[in-house]
């Protein structure tokens, strides 16, 4: 496969304060032929009874991916660009260890195919020099793909954060969350 066009200077940014919960990302993601009309990105209301706030979750592509560590079949791998790929279908045994272990709750087990499926950063697009589909269609820039320098210039009031703390676990990710200026870590208790 020709991977020469993967631009390592470009990164994925999630900016939750811009999300309007429209689900365009999910629908566009599902269009990819590798996804079989199932979205790999998830948009959910936080608590519709009190707010219209939504939360968007895409694979964070961890530096040291928990999903891969807990996979007994060695089906999940991270490539040279830092992309954590969806389970190798020849290896995945549908044990759902990854589903339970991922601190972000990203991998899903497809009951009918008995396979884990998750976002692979639109590898077919990003390896061809394109942006991921969700970050291309997102009508608000809540999902954005490009260089860190450009992002800082466009959104001077926010800082990208890719360090997360879940209880005792520290996680560093390839994907960034846009946080208020000055933030360096997102602590999830």
């Amino acid at each position, binding site marked *: 496969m020709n991977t020469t066009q993967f631009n390592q200077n470009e990164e994925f940014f999630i900016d939750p304060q811009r999300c309007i919960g429209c689900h365009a990302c*999910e629908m566009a993601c599902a269009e990819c032929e590798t996804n079989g009309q199932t979205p790999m990105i998830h948009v959910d209301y936080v608590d519709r009874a009190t707010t219209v706030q939504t939360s968007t979750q895409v694979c964070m592509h961890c530096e040291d991916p928990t999903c891969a560590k807990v996979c007994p079949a060695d089906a999940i791998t991270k490539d040279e660009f830092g992309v954590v790929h969806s389970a190798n279908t020849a290896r995945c045994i549908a044990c759902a260890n990854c589903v339970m272990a991922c601190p972000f709750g990203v991998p899903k087990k497809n*009951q009918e195919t008995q396979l884990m499926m998750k976002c692979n950063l639109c*590898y077919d697009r990003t390896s061809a020099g394109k942006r991921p589909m969700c970050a291309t269609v997102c009508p*608000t820039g809540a999902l954005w793909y490009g260089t860190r320098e450009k992002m800082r210039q466009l959104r001077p009031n926010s800082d990208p954060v890719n360090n997360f703390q879940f209880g005792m676990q520290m996680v560093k990710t390839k994907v960034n969350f846009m946080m208020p200026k000055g933030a360096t870590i997102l602590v999830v208790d």
Partner: protein
Amino acid sequence: MATLPIAQERLAAEFGPHKNYAPREGFPGRDEPDDVVKTHCCFCGMQCGIQLLVKDNRVVGFEPWEEFPFNEGRLCPKGVQRYLQNNHPDRLLAPLERVEGVGFRPIDWDRAMERTVSEIQRIQEKYGRDAFAMLSGVSLTNEKSYLVGKFARIALKTRNLDYNGRLCMVSAGAGNKKAFGIDRTSNNFSDLKHAEVVMICGTNVSETFPTLTHWIWQARDNGAKLIVVDPRTTPIARLADLHLPVRPGRDSALYGAILHQLIKHDWLDHEFIANHTSGFEETAAVVKDYDLEWAENVTGIAKDKIMLAAEWWGKAATSFLLHARGIEHHSKGVENVIACINLVLATGRIGRPYCGYGTITGQGNGQGGREHGHKCDQLPGNRDIENPEHRQYIASVWGIEEKDLPHKGLTAYEIIQAIHRGEIKGLITICFNPLVSLPNNTYVREALEKLEYYVAIDFFLNETAQHANLVLASSLHEEEDGTVTTAEGRVVRIRRAVKPPGNARTDTEIILEIARRLGAGKYFSFENSEAIFNELRVASKGGTADYYGITYEKIEKNMGVFWPCPTLDHPGTPRLWEDKKFKTPDGKAHFNPVPHRDPMEITDAEYPVILTTGRVVSQYLSGTQTRRIGKLVDQYPEPLLEIHPTLAAKYGITDRQIVAVISRRARAEFPAQIVETIREDTVFVPYHWAGKQSINQLTSGHLDPISKIPEFKVSAVRLEPTNRRAPLPPLEPNQSSGGSPAHPAPQLPPTHAFRG
């Protein structure tokens, strides 16, 4: 009698709406398309650029069009899924004739045309020409809008042509003409980028114009303060710096009160007011008593919030005010619009970079479709059908005698009323589903049933077309070339991607053929859409909406041209009023006094709750298209009654309980959705659905006296909880089944394997 030939349930079983889903592996040929067509979305006024993938005369997918300057590839869920209306199982493939007790049966085009023309002639001979009316819509291109206007006036020879923009932008149009003498948003949206204050009045931008949100967030990145006026905490209101939850129907009180504060604190541009406006003194006099106390009492908004809005607006150096149906769908829609414009004029912030104002046009071609003779009182170029000079000019372009040009006719809802009274006996519709989108559905249905003959031109058998005697199977957006004018006033190219399927014909072919058979062929000898556009250019020349300098080639080269563009070497006009020469007779921008008054229907002991209506992000207008696209339906499958927990508690209503909502017109039942994101005195139901699910059964036919827009946004209702509950929606259907319920279990494509 245009009654249903068989029960509605049987019609729905045959003609839909059925939900269309893409196959799991995508449509065949998507990876190797025959053509990638750069065009625009068929839905809202943003007209986002999109590329359609075409294989074997089918639209098989889409690819973002990242070079188009407005949206740069961005799309909303409707845009992502829009291609699924192509090759839809409900698509009409041949003309259909109503057969009592049987339904609709296909007939050939020759017979369909013969019937159409003989019925038009029979009704017009018996009852007069104006007894045959036409209702049209602004999802049509500029070419088709122009063609319909010409067709109605010189082939059908009726004065009774109007369009569904009457439910959309007419209040804004009338307000803008009064104030500026022109009906167009004053700025393109890039002027949002460095506006210090952005005020969004009655527009659920995040759900109805999602791709505009990007421009508003850009303004905020640059430090803008965002003010949102809406009775609900919409997604954009949640993220606003200041949310003013106005009581429905009291908008002009809020804007009057803000003007009062601007005057009181001298946050005024005296130079601009003195040199470029008229009417300030009279306007100021009207708001003299509109102090904060009064405003809080009338609008239900805390006075410190009103004060803060006035202060931010008053002190800003740059600003952009946007409004939409939230202030326009009122019996005083024009007054609300004018009250907003007064704030813009008082601060003189217009005609300069990052100083903007405009309505956000709702429909795809809501802008262009309202400029070229589609309206009952209008001729091309936004000319006045009662102005002798305008009449003479258009008559000369069309090659007819001025005396043969009909005069002003009835507006859309008035046409329905005239049908109900028995004055109009025949109807032809295109691109309009009034049985869902007009208020008081029962009344509209009664009117349709009184028609002697009804011809519907459409690509799906929508709920109104089910009443037709004859249905002419027509074309989708992607099946004809043309242009539309976006909400910014940018004229863009719609490209034909595929041909109509089966024996369906293009809208243009159908209209031209009827015109020929009515004996008007010599006026309708257009070879293609571009020929129609070229005549439109001439017809618009010298009018306020002047397209003369715009050509297909110029649009394609520049990715759109902003009108007015009077000459071939003119670059177009993205920002109006830089020269401060307004198009009013005295060349000045006009303040207009707006004394506040209540909506037509106010709550009382019998009907104590305010009902307001609107849209959701996954559906579009009357749903003819979007209720047929599976994932859009699944995202929000049925209309829900949004109700605040305090109001719900008063009636003992719990979440998902089915509640009867009763107005003076009708009673309808909806599952309750208990949310804190709405005023305590107001309930909300979206309007995209038909029949028993239609909230427009309950809305009133009260019209604005000037624009004739119905008051969709305010009705008085009472609530009666039933002892039934709606089942909970399924949890994450895509995860449990691996996809849509309409499709069998997937075979995961081989390409899914690890590819690193």
